């Protein structure tokens, strides 16, 4: 049996202050009141009723007890001290930078910005939608492109998405051509970019042609080309002729670039590129040993429907005012499934917002100043090293001069020694040259120290310092066009204005700092302050991902412990921390399964069985992994139809690669037959991939291994407290059984992964390393009992809501005994018949009550899926239930004919302050009913910034850049 002690109670007088009672919402009294409502004898009895006995763990997790917040932070300080923050001039897509303090304090370290969800409910997300629109506008301006998305996971992923997008838009060119389609990649792209392109091209049957872009030949089979400037060696190229040549040959071109370089250099968009991508990290986002950062992706207007990722657009609200929303959502996986343009779901909203706000704060003049300074220091370095007889070899460079050393390997050895002694990392290349990537933190002293390293290594005196040379580029590569001319980038340059601008945006949005966000499948639990603090400690935030591993021993210890704890929780043998999102984890898991089959000579296995109720990313990921999707039917109770599964597994037995299954199911139920389902798949030679989206209902009570899975991903941003960041970042590590461990992903620069590692899936070896600290903190502070309690209270909170609301709204799926897992689906379809009110109307009306809507129409159209998580106290659950019950009465009034079918509180929701305070009020209900429908709302009123947004208008009149300034209220 599971340990009966609770972290919430039963502490001795000398026990450390338990974190469990801070993380978990209900206290002992509330727990007992709630148990009475759900009619369960005890919390354990309820859990026994919710989870089938045969998949329960028989003993507690083998994990240590929790640490108090104080103890944890003290211990982590000593781990942090094991990281050594050298000055890193390694480059390769990652640069030290200065996060403006006003952004650090008011955005990165502010729950108002890091706790909200992806802005699907646009009326209560206008703040971060505006900030993301700034990001898009900035990217478009700097790259010279027509549209940009609101960020991708990392630069290498953006490059891979560029390849697959060009494959789609060029389908006509390769139609009917004999042989596999080819994609040209310049050999001077970043190594991690090339590795990801290898990873992503092979399953899709795309042949990579890697070579020198200057001599690239474009045969019939070549549909696209990818080049980079500045390239991996820091060399800036004039791509004009190359792009013109490619276009003449009918080849589409993607160009990787650097946003700060684009300030001074001709942007690729002005040369005719189809796609421009890169990393926006150096715009104020800390290195974080690899992430999280926001990659950017910009393209031409004619390609926008083929673009991956989220795109923010401009529309109008019910009153005709400008309003922002996510555009073109039909490209996303929940609609297109296996036909989706990519499996990219999570963006990097928080980091994109930081980068966009960095541009707002500095403006075009500030960015020009920064870029010019960086370049000037690079030139100063060149001239001073020249005085030492060291030759700079890049034809053009922006921030990264490269040096040929006199004396060969021995000199290099001396320089390495001298640099390490000065706590400096340089970019040592295989050809013996050394590249030095400078950044905005560099000053005179840093240049002096760099020159001293070389002087010492050569045994010469350091030359006298000279003033930095002014920036000057050859006319062919110098930027001549203006950028960031929009007023938004030209008016918030004092800290007072910036602080108020950020705060003004923040107050428009609902995050967990405002109220419960009951999104089913998203697990919007507490992101505790103690979990968040360490990510901005310099020992963690300023480490370059390719710094020597011995400088990152603190991180390495955290990774080892985290992997071990995740292995214990999942019941698996090994864990990879590399995948940067849940969908990335799905893809990684499928590639690992594919590699396993192939290694055994089972090359034909390419069929993936996916239940009809699966997350849309599942089929999208399967297609990316080169697999064929076969959909398995659900029973009327919402469970997997085991007979159908058996039939399809038998039918495809020679080709069966895997089953993808979510557990507990996307319907919020612990399916009884899960072990039979897994054994059917194993019987026919397949592997079982468990989607870990609902892991929050498993921890400590059952596990992926216990149900019979071979691989799972774990959404650390759901179950393990990484905040949703208003639409990212996330992390999706995968756990695997022993037979799959050899295939865990590797990395081209830093050794990691299994003995037969597949290619990298993320640009950085441990994905977004710095936010792993959040999950690490969660696990260390809750410990074995706290984490298990969190699961039990997640189940209690869900069943409590079910008990309170089931007489008002039918609950679609439960176990036979009526229990749900950690979430439940309310069916609104019967009400739509009777009243004309749809699930979307209820979602918008909840805004008037101060709540973010539950998940709308997933996994069943016409429904709302509610997941309260363990972190919400009974009082908040009651307010939410009261709101839902009052809304049910409002719907009843329509059914009864006492409220108008069109002009009612639901159809007109949400109600803005301007609408309610207007002199003219023509609705048949009162202003008070509109704005303050229940007494509690008065104390917590959150006014939606805009009225109901016109979605069709936004998609028909696509605008993805900041609108004219007159539109700003």
């Amino acid at each position: 049996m599971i340990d009966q002690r609770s972290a919430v109670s039963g502490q001795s007088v000398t026990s450390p202050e338990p974190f469990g009672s801070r993380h978990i919402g209900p206290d002992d009294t509330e727990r007992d009141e709630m148990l009475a409502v759900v009619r369960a004898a005890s919390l354990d009895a309820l859990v026994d009723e919710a989870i089938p006995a045969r998949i329960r763990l028989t003993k507690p997790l083998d994990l240590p007890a929790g640490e108090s917040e104080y103890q944890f932070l003290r211990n982590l300080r000593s781990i942090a001290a094991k990281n050594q923050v050298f000055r890193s001039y390694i480059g390769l897509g990652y640069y030290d930078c200065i996060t403006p303090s006003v952004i650090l304090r008011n955005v990165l370290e502010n729950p108002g910005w890091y706790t909200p969800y992806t802005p699907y409910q646009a009326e209560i997300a206008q703040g971060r939608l505006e900030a993301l629109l700034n990001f898009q506008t900035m990217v478009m301006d700097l790259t010279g492109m027509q549209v940009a998305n609101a960020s991708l996971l990392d630069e290498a992923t953006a490059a891979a998405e560029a390849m697959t997008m060009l494959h789609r838009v060029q389908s006509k060119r390769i139609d009917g051509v004999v042989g596999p389609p080819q994609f040209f990649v310049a050999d001077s792209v970043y190594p991690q970019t090339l590795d990801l392109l290898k990873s992503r091209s092979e399953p899709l049957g795309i042949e990579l042609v890697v070579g020198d872009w200057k001599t690239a030949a474009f045969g019939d089979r070549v549909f696209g080309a990818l080049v980079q400037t500045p390239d991996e060696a820091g060399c800036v190229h004039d791509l004009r002729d190359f792009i013109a040549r490619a276009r003449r040959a009918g080849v589409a071109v993607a160009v990787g670039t650097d946003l700060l370089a684009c300030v001074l250099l001709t942007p690729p968009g002005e040369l005719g590129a189809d796609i421009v991508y890169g990393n926006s990290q150096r715009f104020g986002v800390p290195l974080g040993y690899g992430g999280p950062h926001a990659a950017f992706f910009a393209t031409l207007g004619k390609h926008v429907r083929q673009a991956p990722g989220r795109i923010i657009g401009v529309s109008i609200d019910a009153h005709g005012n400008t309003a922002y929303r996510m555009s073109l959502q039909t490209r996303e996986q929940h609609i297109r499934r296996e036909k989706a343009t990519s499996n990219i779901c999570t963006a990097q909203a928080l980091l994109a917002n930081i980068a966009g706000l960095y541009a707002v704060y500095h403006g075009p003049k500030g960015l020009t100043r920064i870029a010019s300074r960086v370049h000037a220091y690079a030139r100063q370095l060149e001239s001073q090293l020249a005085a030492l007889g060291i030759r700079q070899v890049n034809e053009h460079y922006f921030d990264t001069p490269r040096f040929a050393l006199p004396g060969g390997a021995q000199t290099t050895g001396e320089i390495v020694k001298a640099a390490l002694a000065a706590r400096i990392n340089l970019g040592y290349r295989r050809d013996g040259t050394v590249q030095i990537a400078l950044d905005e933190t560099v000053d005179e002293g840093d240049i002096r120290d760099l020159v001293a390293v070389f002087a010492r290594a050569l045994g010469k005196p350091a030359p006298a310092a000279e003033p930095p040379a002014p920036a000057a580029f050859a006319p062919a590569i110098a930027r001549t066009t203006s950028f960031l001319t929009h007023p938004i980038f030209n008016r918030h340059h004092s800290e007072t204005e910036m602080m108020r601008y950020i705060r003004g945006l923040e107050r428009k949005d609902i995050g967990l700092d405002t109220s419960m966000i009951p999104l089913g499948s998203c697990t919007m639990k507490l992101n505790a302050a103690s979990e968040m603090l360490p990510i901005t400690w310099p020992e963690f935030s300023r480490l370059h991902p390719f710094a020597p591993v011995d400088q990152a021993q603190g991180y390495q210890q955290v990774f080892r412990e985290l992997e071990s704890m995740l292995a214990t929780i999942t019941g698996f043998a090994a864990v990879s921390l590399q995948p940067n999102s849940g969908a990335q984890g799905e893809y990684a898991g499928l590639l690992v399964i594919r590699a396993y089959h192939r290694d055994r000579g089972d090359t034909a296995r390419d069929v993936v069985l996916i239940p009809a109720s699966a997350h849309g990313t599942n089929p999208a990921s399967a297609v990316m992994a080169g697999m064929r999707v076969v959909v398995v039917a659900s029973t009327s109770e919402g469970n997997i139809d085991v007979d159908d599964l058996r039939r399809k597994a038998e039918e495809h037995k020679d080709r069966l690669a895997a089953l993808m299954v979510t557990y507990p199911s996307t319907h919020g139920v612990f399916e009884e037959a899960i072990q039979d389902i897994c054994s059917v798949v194993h019987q026919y030679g397949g592997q079982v991939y468990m989607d870990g989206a609902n892991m929050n209902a498993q921890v400590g009570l059952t596990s992926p291994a216990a149900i019979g899975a071979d691989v799972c991903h774990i959404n650390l941003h759901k179950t393990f407290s990484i905040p949703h960041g208003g639409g990212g970042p996330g992390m999706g590590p995968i756990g695997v059984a022993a037979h799959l461990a050899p295939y865990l992903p590797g990395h081209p620069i830093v050794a990691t992964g299994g003995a037969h590692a597949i290619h990298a899936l993320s640009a950085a070896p441990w994905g977004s390393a710095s936010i792993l600290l959040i999950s690490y903190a969660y696990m260390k502070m809750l410990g074995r009992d706290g984490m298990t309690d969190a699961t039990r209270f997640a189940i209690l909170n869900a069943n409590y809501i079910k008990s309170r609301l089931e007489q008002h709204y039918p609950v679609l799926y439960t176990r036979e005994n009526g229990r749900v897992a950690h979430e439940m689906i309310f069916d609104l379809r019967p009400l739509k018949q009777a009243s004309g009110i749809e699930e979307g109307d209820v979602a918008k009306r909840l805004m008037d009550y101060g709540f973010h809507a539950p998940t709308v129409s997933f996994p069943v159209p016409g429904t709302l899926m509610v997941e309260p998580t363990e972190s919400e106290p009974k009082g908040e659950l009651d307010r939410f239930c009261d709101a839902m019950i009052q809304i049910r009465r409002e719907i009843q009034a329509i059914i009864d004919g006492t409220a108008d079918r069109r002009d009612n509180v639901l159809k007109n929701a949400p109600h803005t302050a301007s609408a309610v305070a207007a002199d003219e009020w023509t609705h048949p209900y009162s202003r008070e009913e509109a704005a303050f429908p229940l007494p509690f709302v008065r104390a917590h009123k959150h006014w939606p910034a805009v009225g109901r947004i016109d979605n069709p208008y936004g998609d028909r009149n696509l605008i993805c850049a900041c609108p004219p300034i007159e539109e700003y209220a």
Partner: protein
Amino acid sequence: MAAAYPAGFKYTKDHEWIELAGDRGKVGITDYAQAQLGDVVYVELPEVGAKLKQGQSFGTIESVKAVSELYSPVTGEVVEVNAPLKDKPETVNSDPHGTWMVVVKLTNPSEASGLLDAAQYQDLIK
């Protein structure tokens, strides 16, 4: 208000209609289809000269919340495309049976006899 189903059109089970005139036919989607999709925001159509096969996709239609393939009622070649539709996709909602998408020159006119008539189609969507 539901639009009437013209008696002179032929219909498919995939909810397209075709208005035949000699060996040519105008193709659109039915009132039922537009109602199911909701507000149409985008229509992607083939180019003139594209070869279509009966029952195969010749384009896509998107609403705010759904995306659907357009299936050709007949085999043939596209001889005309309703290009202005790109800029006013909402006419698919307001006038579904008056908004054609492509004109197809049939290579196998006998295929049309296998399509539904207005009464049969209305039975299908009941």
